[in-house]
């Protein structure tokens, strides 16, 4: 059924359709309306779940992690400082190999205080062992929540679904909401391979000494390697059930592009019309929207971008002293690639600053005419 939904509402309905059993979350702007809507959905019986109203994000993730270990399908959601406060538990979830699904509404991290969108909250958690999927639309957010459970429960790693704060979390769009029985057919009930049970007592997360610890981490890496295939399969099967799929990346006019814009989230939507306008002028530009950031699709992205002369990376984040995080990852991926386009780095949209069509046009035209990158990222929209 088609409905007009915000990104946060689409997420909430997605969680309902997935029949999450234990939900725990703490409100933070711009994620709050997910907490509110799921509270209502659980209170009025549309979803039979235990919703635990905790006192912090650390507790929210600790709570659903323990519930997951006890065999429940679980959900939590947060943003920004909340995600940072979960940091310890993020590592714990992937270390325990728990199929936790979380939505993070991307928001800048202070100081100074800022409640608006950028990607520095989730990208600064890139090494915590979570699969990360960045969405472009409310429909994709709902669909990705459903896919996330399939992925997490197969590879036993947690999945973080990302939606841009406000740009996606609070704007409304037409969303095709699947019927419960359709989702049930795609996503069977969670049957944990291991769980806390008096019938088969085991100790979770016991001390692993130096001879064993590395094995746990290596097995998790193997699971993350496997996750690539599972993400692709979950997406393919999703298409056969619902007619929609998203891939590791969204690709627009790449076949003959000289310059490709690489970016994530809703900035890709803004880029679409710019690409179309520049194409009308005969400029060979294309768009690659990175949807799967972890595991990073190094090989695939090398192939996708190998044909371009130049790539312009627009990062909505910055790692002080090193530059945009997507650009860093791309450059690392291209190092071993057969063909290596030149990488131009742009940083913009921090703390919710608009990325306008004019900004993207400027980025693409600069990249088209500049012979090579000047060595440092170009910051967009700095007030002089």
């Amino acid at each position, binding site marked *: 059924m088609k409905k007009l939904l915000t990104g946060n509402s689409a997420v909430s309905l997605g969680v309902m359709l997935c029949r999450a059993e234990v939900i725990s979350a703490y409100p933070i702007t711009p994620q709050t309306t997910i907490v509110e809507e799921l509270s209502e959905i659980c209170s009025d019986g549309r979803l039979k779940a235990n919703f635990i109203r905790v006192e912090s994000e650390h507790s929210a993730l600790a709570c659903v992690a323990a519930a997951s270990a006890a065999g429940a399908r679980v959900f939590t959601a947060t943003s920004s400082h909340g995600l940072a406060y979960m940091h310890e538990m993020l590592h714990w979830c992937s270390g325990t190999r728990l199929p936790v699904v979380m939505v993070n509404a991307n928001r800048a991290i202070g100081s100074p205080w800022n409640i608006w969108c950028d990607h520095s909250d989730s990208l600064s958690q890139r090494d915590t062992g979570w699969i990360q999927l960045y969405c472009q639309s409310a429909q994709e957010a709902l669909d990705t929540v459903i896919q996330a459970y399939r992925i997490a429960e197969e590879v036993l790693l947690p999945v973080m679904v990302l939606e841009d704060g406000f740009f996606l979390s609070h704007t409304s769009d037409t969303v095709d909401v699947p019927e419960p029985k359709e989702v049930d057919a795609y996503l069977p009930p969670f049957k944990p391979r291991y769980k806390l049970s008096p019938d088969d*007592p085991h100790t979770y997360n016991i001390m692993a000494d130096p001879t064993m610890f590395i094995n746990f981490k290596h097995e998790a890496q193997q699971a993350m390697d496997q996750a690539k295939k599972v993400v692709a399969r979950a997406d393919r099967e999703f298409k056969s059930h619902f007619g929609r799929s998203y891939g590791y990346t969204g690709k627009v006019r790449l076949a003959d592009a000289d310059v490709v814009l690489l970016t994530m989230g809703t900035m890709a939507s803004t880029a679409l019309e710019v690409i179309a306008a520049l194409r009308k002028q005969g400029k060979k530009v294309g768009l690659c929207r990175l949807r799967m950031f972890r595991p990073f699709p190094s090989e695939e992205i090398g192939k996708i971008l190998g044909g371009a002369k130049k790539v312009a990376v627009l990062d909505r984040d910055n790692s002080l002293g090193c530059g945009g995080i997507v650009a860093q990852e791309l450059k690392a991926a291209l190092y071993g690639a057969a063909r290596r386009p030149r990488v131009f780095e742009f940083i913009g949209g921090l703390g919710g600053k608009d990325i306008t069509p004019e900004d993207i046009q400027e980025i693409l035209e600069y990249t088209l005419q500049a012979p090579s990158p000047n060595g440092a990222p170009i910051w967009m929209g700095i007030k002089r």
Partner: protein
Amino acid sequence: MKAKELVDQYLYSGHGCCPGCAMPIVLRTVFHALGENTVAVITAGCFGTISGTFPSSPIKLPAYNTPFPSAGAAGSGVRAALDMKGENRTTVVTIAGDGGTFDIGIQAISAAAERNDDYIFICYDNEAYMNTGIQRSSATPWGAWTTTTPPSNLKSQPKKDIVQIMAAHRIPYVATASIAYPDDFLRKIRKAKATHGFKFLYAFSPCPVGWRFSPELTVRLARLAVQAKVFPLYEVEEGERYILNVEPEGVPVSDYLKPQGRFSFLREGDMERIQENVDRDWERLMRRMNA
């Protein structure tokens, strides 16, 4: 009952406790009373560290280790999952030391208590951060030596009154417990198991290494703490009904302090001051008993 009955039922040998540690006695008592239909949640601290090394575990119950500040939240998560599966007869017990309860864990514990989530929280109090090597906690008593309260700067604040803090949440059941009174201890665990809602059990856990006493004195010190009114055995129901379980003989507090090296740096008059504080706390407790 005989102490032998508690051995090797749900907590086996092979754990890494120091000789004379009270904690395994506490846990054997708890596990014995709860029985096999139990899930244990363990937070960082002595128990988290000594409970074996992969792939062995000395615990014959399903057990889940959770990071230091999260004992309260993890207990709620396990409870919620079991309830969703219809396994509401399974008991959840969360185990933390004084650090994981009084200090880094208090936020999540307070929240779980306020929600009145249905599980038992056990604090084993050895009165300092013993797992990291004897640093002061807010459970360390006045005048005690630790590695962060050296002889020139002994702990100069009284111990936090965790029982009052938890009772102030008006949860159904709060009780103190001692390994020197196993029948009383077992009864309290069984009462907690039969009570719905959040239950807080507070177990005194003498630590030979951190308190600097000879390991054969563990149970004797636990008994002296009760008899000297340092650790009264009592219950609080619904935050207001106080019940005294053992009437202390009122032995001098110095009998309890003197075998412990951590109190060997007390200055002239300190012993009297500690005795006065213990007496004042006791009177305060008696006023609540009689209210």
